[in-house]
């Protein structure tokens, strides 16, 4: 198995045959030296050669070395003793030589062991280099490859055999800043930086590399050791991120609607810090608008696009950077902005709110703001805000509402015209009574003995009838008034009864009986009193007119009420006036569609627009009594049309 590097290859190459060869050679040498030593009587310096044998046999192992050392020492002793049987034959020089021999053997043994230890350590280091993922290459001073680790094999695609001995530059086509590198190696003996190399398959690689100058024991340069790590993937990822950021910037800059980024770290900190723990943020901010102001004062704009500059009337995008929110929003925006702060605090990542703002050039703007919190860490540092200018939309809506109110008023006035005779009658009755009582009073007074009691009754009656007449006038005036719609809580039962009172006379003159069955508790509804009354009168009048052709006896008009689907009240007006033409049921709410000869067909469309602008719905169908049922619903909750509202989207 050939996996070794340069250092290790020496050892790995020691197959068992090599070891056997060494052993045999060692044995032969030992025998030769022993023989000579014996022949010379143990006096010769031949025994010194044992040291060489020990060193030779070193690679066979430490324990082996020790064993050999002991064995050879024994042999030297034997030879010496054999040559000097008689102790008295001993000369000083001979004894000294013997001592030196033993010393040499011992030293050689130790040296050999030490050498082994070193070799093991080096071998382990070499193994570490092998296992390293990074590439390690060692070149000599001629740029020929001396060492090529596993990492280099994998990364560059060249195997060890193919690489070792080849010119590194030629093999890998390294691109590097030559002048800088040589200078660094000269001055500091090392250089680290990024280089580009080409793999065997032609792909280019970016590597982070460190080159260290090799010097031999004399200090001469003998090559370079290199360690490199592959940066290609990381670089690619970096490029992608940069490209993505670039795209984001382009979208940000060129978007047709205002976008800006704002740092809210300080702002959120203030809003959280100031709040006592037992109150929730929403209530706290509601009660302390100055806190909201402080929060807004510490929120600054970091970056804005061109459209934002135009929106805010700034000279340039840069002019917006650094502005704080305080100077941009009107006082009435405090509430929706407080709602936005609360939503952010509660963890919403997207919040929408409608606010009134003041541009830098003084214009008042209606804006819908959409705020996004980034999901990266330190999210408050980069709030993304998009703003849509809805000033025009709101203006148009106001104009439409105004036009609608005008139309409704026109319809009311026309309706009043139709009711004129019955209204006149309503006023006439009390007037008649007043005249009668007045004349009666005169007669009572003209008597020889004035009847004061009767007089008193007459005067009382005059007063009560005057009130009755003025009530009718007031009710009519209410209907004729042209005002902008006002949403107030209404008692529907009371409103319907009042309406019935208004058209009672009309119903009577057409011999129509109005029935209003008692209903279980009806919740308060929200709406404009005048407009809802207009709807009721219109529908009732329609039914009365529809029943003109029915037999007088059976003309009944029913008004039912009930609480329907959560938060709505339903009112139904049922008659037996023939119903709607079968195919045309769906069209009766269309403008200018009329089944009546004199009708202009505007009443029902206006009823529908009034009901729908209140948030309800209206429908009509024929019933089983040969008549029609018109049903409309009105909401029980206050739904503001145009006031600022905060909506949390996520």
């Amino acid at each position, binding site marked *: 198995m050939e996996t070794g590097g340069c250092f290790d290859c020496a050892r790995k190459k020691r197959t068992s045959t090599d070891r056997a060869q060494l052993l045999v050679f060692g044995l032969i040498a030992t025998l030769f030296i022993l023989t000579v030593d014996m022949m010379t009587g143990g006096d010769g310096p031949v025994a010194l050669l044992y040291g060489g044998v020990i060193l030779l046999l070193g690679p066979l192992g430490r324990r082996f070395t020790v064993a050999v050392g002991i064995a050879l020492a024994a042999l030297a002793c034997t030879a010496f003793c054999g040559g000097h049987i008689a102790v008295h034959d001993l000369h000083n020089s001979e004894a000294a030589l013997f001592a030196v021999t033993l010393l040499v053997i011992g030293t050689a043994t130790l040296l050999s062991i030490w050498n082994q230890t070193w070799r093991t350590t080096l071998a382990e280091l070499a193994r570490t280099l092998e296992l390293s993922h990074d590439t390690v290459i060692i070149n000599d001073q001629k740029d020929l490859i001396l060492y090529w680790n596993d990492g280099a094999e994998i990364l560059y695609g060249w195997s060890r055999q193919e690489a070792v001995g080849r010119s590194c530059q030629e093999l890998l086509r390294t691109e590097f800043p030559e002048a800088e590198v040589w200078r660094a190696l000269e001055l500091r003996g090392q250089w680290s930086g990024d280089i580009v190399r080409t793999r065997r398959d032609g792909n280019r690689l970016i590597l982070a590399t460190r080159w260290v100058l090799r010097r031999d024991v004399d200090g001469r340069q003998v090559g370079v050791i290199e360690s490199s790590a592959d940066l290609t993937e990381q670089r690619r990822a970096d490029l992608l991120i940069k490209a993505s950021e670039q795209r984001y910037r382009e979208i940000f800059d060129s978007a047709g609607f205002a976008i800006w980024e704002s740092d809210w770290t300080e702002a959120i900190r203030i809003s959280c810090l100031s709040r006592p723990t037992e109150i929730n943020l929403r209530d706290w901010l509601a009660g302390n608008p100055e806190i909201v102001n402080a929060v807004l004062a510490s929120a600054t704009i970091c970056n804005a696009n061109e459209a934002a500059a135009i929106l805010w009337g700034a000279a340039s995008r840069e002019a917006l950077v650094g502005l704080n929110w305080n100077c941009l929003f009107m006082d009435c925006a405090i509430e929706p902005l407080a709602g936005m702060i609360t939503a952010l605090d509660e963890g919403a990542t997207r919040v929408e709110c409608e606010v009134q703002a003041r541009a830098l050039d003084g214009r008042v703007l209606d804006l819908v703001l959409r705020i996004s919190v980034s999901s990266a860490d330190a999210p408050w540092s980069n709030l993304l805000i998009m703003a849509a200018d809805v000033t025009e939309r709101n203006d148009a809506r106001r104009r439409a509402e105004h036009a609608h109110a005008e139309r409704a008023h026109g319809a009311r006035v026309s309706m009043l015209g139709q009711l004129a005779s019955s209204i006149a*009658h309503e006023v006439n*009755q009390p007037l*008649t009574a007043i*005249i*009668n*009582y007045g004349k*009666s009073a005169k007669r009572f007074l003209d008597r020889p003995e004035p009847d004061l009691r009767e007089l008193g009754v007459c005067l009382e*009656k005059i007063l009560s009838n005057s009130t*009755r007449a003025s009530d009718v006038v007031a009710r009519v005036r209410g209907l004729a008034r042209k005002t902008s719609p006002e949403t107030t809580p209404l008692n529907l039962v009371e409103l319907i009864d009042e309406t019935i009172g208004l058209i009672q006379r009309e119903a*009577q003159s057409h011999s129509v009986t109005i029935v209003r069955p008692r209903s279980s508790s009806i919740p308060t509804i929200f709406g404009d009193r005048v407009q809802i009354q207009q709807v009721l009168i219109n529908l009732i009048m329609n039914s009365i007119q529809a029943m003109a052709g029915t037999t007088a006896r059976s003309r009944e008009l029913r008004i039912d009420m009930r609480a329907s689907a959560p938060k709505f009240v339903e009112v139904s007006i049922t008659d037996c006036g023939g119903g709607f033409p079968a195919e045309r049921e769906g069209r009766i709410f269309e403008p200018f569609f009329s089944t009546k000869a004199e009708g202009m067909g505007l009443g029902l469309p206006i009823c529908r627009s009034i009901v729908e602008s209140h948030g309800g719905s209206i429908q009509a169908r024929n019933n089983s009594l040969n008549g029609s049922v018109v049903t409309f619903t009105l909401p029980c909750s206050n739904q503001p049309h145009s006031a600022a509202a905060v909506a949390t989207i996520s």
Partner: protein
Amino acid sequence: MADKFVICVVDDDAEVRESITTFFRSAGIFVEQFDAAEALLRWPGLDQMGCLITDVHMPGVNGLDLQRKLTDHRRRVPVIMMTAYPSLRVFQEGRLLGVRAFLVKPIDPEQLLDEVKALLQAGSNRDIMSRQNDIR
């Protein structure tokens, strides 16, 4: 016929009815008041009715129907009709039914009184006036 001296007033509007009654009372004439034609027709003292003042437009049986019914039961008496909605048709119908006088609301009570007096004197009901005086 001497027994027929009661003047009846029929009108569904309470204030009108009451005020007419009060006026006649101030003039010294007592009237019976009814809130609906049906009430009059049910009245046990119907035989004593000498003159009728009635509203035309009422829910249920209206003034003209009342006159018709009275005619059918041969209880015709001089009738004065009051109306807030004067129309040619109503006049013509009334005429055919024998209505003597139509008054348009708001009515001048003096005029009403004069009509009543004229009707009573025109007919053979001179006794009514004296009977009225007796009551007073």
